[in-house]
């Protein structure tokens, strides 16, 4: 039975990190209906900034981690200001193409630094002995990942539901023209959405980097790995990202734990989430919590 609970715990841990990684997609899509293809690169940049501040500048990691989130917040805001601001009102496909270009530019810039081709790891800062309860163990790194994920998700949920600017962002998401007519600054909302996506990406990068080590290819791949999560959850739903992340995490762990290695099966943890994603999308094409818009003509 402890094996089962261990898989549940691991599934929730992995799922919550998927949710955090996918949050950036949701934040940008929710306000601007744009898919940011360069999200994986921003995750990697966030991790590298944390490393640089910790190891090269010498700051304690509990200072460098939030600092990297703040830096990435402004970095993502600048990216939106420089590359995307002038595309407001242009077809969405044009904006997505720009984010593909942005991905190449960021790739190129990262390859100019040691982070592009070298491997690093954060200096150990957490106890190495895991927390173990009744045969189920969870490492401090994973515990930290879950805590940061749920704190950020709770914060963003509150922000969108209660704060004026959050409500403005939702309004812009619903109808840009109507929002402008009541005095909401659409460009400002877009900038803020990118900035918050940058902040969440830096958090995800720091956590993933702490688990896998800092390897650019591994980190940037999470921009793609979490794509099924946000599709399943519904591209514009924070709650959807959380639920879908945890579903994916649990499916992966259970498939790997109970199917792989039996009946000649292997790698089901990689494939099964996609099969389930396809099945769910057959019945709920907008994802589990995505808004189904009906256009009246």
């Amino acid at each position: 039975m402890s094996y089962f609970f261990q898989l549940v715990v691991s599934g929730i841990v992995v799922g919550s990190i998927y949710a955090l990684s996918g949050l950036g997609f949701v934040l940008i899509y929710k306000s601007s209906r744009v898919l940011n293809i360069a999200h994986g690169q921003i995750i990697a940049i966030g991790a590298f900034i944390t490393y640089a501040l910790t190891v090269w500048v010498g700051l304690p990691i509990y200072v460098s981690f939030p600092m990297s989130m703040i830096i990435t917040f402004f970095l993502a805001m600048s990216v939106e200001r420089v590359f995307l601001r002038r595309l407001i009102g242009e077809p969405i496909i044009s904006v997505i193409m720009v984010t593909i270009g942005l991905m190449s530019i960021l790739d190129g810039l990262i390859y100019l630094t040691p982070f592009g081709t070298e491997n690093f790891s954060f200096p150990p800062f957490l106890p190495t002995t895991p927390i173990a309860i009744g045969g189920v163990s969870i490492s401090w790194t994973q515990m930290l990942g879950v805590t940061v994920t749920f704190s950020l998700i709770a914060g963003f949920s509150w922000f969108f539901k209660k704060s004026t600017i959050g409500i403005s962002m939702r309004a812009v998401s619903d109808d840009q023209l109507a929002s402008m007519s009541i005095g909401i600054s659409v460009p400002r909302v877009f900038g803020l959405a990118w900035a918050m996506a940058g902040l969440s990406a830096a958090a995800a990068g720091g956590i993933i980097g702490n688990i896998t080590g800092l390897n650019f290819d591994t980190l940037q791949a999470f921009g793609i790995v979490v794509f099924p999560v946000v599709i399943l959850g519904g591209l514009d739903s924070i709650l959807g990202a959380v639920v879908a992340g945890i579903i994916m995490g649990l499916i992966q762990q259970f498939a790997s734990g109970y199917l792989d290695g039996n009946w000649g099966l292997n790698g089901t943890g990689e494939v099964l989430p996609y099969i389930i994603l396809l099945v769910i999308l057959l019945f709920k094409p907008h994802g589990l919590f995505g808004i189904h818009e009906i256009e009246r003509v």
Partner: protein
Amino acid sequence: MKKNNLIKLTLLLVAAFMLSLPVQALAGKVYKLGLSLAITGPTSDAGHPYSQGVDDYFKFVNDTKMLGDDTIDCTIRDDQYKTDKTKQNFEDFLDQGIVFYLNYSTGSTLALKKDFEEEKMPVIPASFHAGNLIDSHYIFLPIASYSAQAIGLAEYVVKNHKGKTPKVAMFIHPSAFGRGPVEDLQKAVAAGLDMEIVEVVEHGKNLDNTAMLKRLVNKGVQYVISQTVQSPVATMLKDATSLGLKANSFGEEGKLTFLGCHYTGGNDLVALAGPAAENFYWTTSYIITNEPSPGATEQLALAKRYNRGEKAANSHNYANGMMVAQVATEVIKRTKAKGKEITKENLYDELQNMNGDNAFFPGTTVGPVTYSKTDHAGVDSLQLYVVKNGAFQSADKPFIPEYTSKIK
């Protein structure tokens, strides 16, 4: 008057041409080589130092006039680990008139095998996949194949395991590169290597390996042999450590001892896994700079001469790149010494003569490089290393796996 000027001009031109002849002769010949590899993109953490090793060694050859007045001009191009780009680069190199080609990935080496045959081009890839040599006459592996490495690790397990038949799992990259040694290891078991392969796990982009590790331990697995790159191994080692499943000594009962082939180890693994890398066993044919040797001194001096950072200087992939450049230079040198022209055909013949008394000792490997008409795997010897106190060190003497020849 005009006629006189014309004669003077002609004489001047003739004189200039005559004078230029000895200068051209003095300038020596330029031998064109090409290298296509992943300097950026996937696996560039290995490709980048590899390219630096190749580049530095050829610069060294030219700067120290190792080939007299002749020089090597090796064009190095990034293919971002994409086979179509590799093919494009190779075709460009052919247009440049290369006489020797250095390739990188398993995928592109397999894909371009027919092109190498058609062009009759001697090739040394950075991939040690045994399958590269099947139906191929022109590919030469620099060191023992991944199959030989996995078999070597398995033999070490069998020799040092206490108790009944050891249960082993393989943790592999989901590609031709990862799958390469699986079949050969299974053949070795069928040929009498006393171990049981319980499971072959193809990994993905896993953030957590709990399910896999627990499953393996429940099945009685004690050893995990990895054939992949460092990052997934690092994550697995961290998970095993946090779950308390990593053996503190070789073969500790109820726990997992981790071992891996060439691209799983090296300083990058220690950088990624940190303290979790402790007691990881790794095999390769290359020397390491942690332990003094003439090859290590030469490697560090070369990196210093061309202002490389400490990471590149101490990378086994830098040694890897340096070694293939050493082999290419050596065959050019030997062909030249025989008074033959430097052509791809003559270099190919000379490579196949590199055996017996003609074996080549580059210093960057733990054994000599030997090739023949029937043997295109360079260094047959392997060295086992283990991480102790955060650094790899030799765990045993260099060895040649026994079952590699038994399964042929």
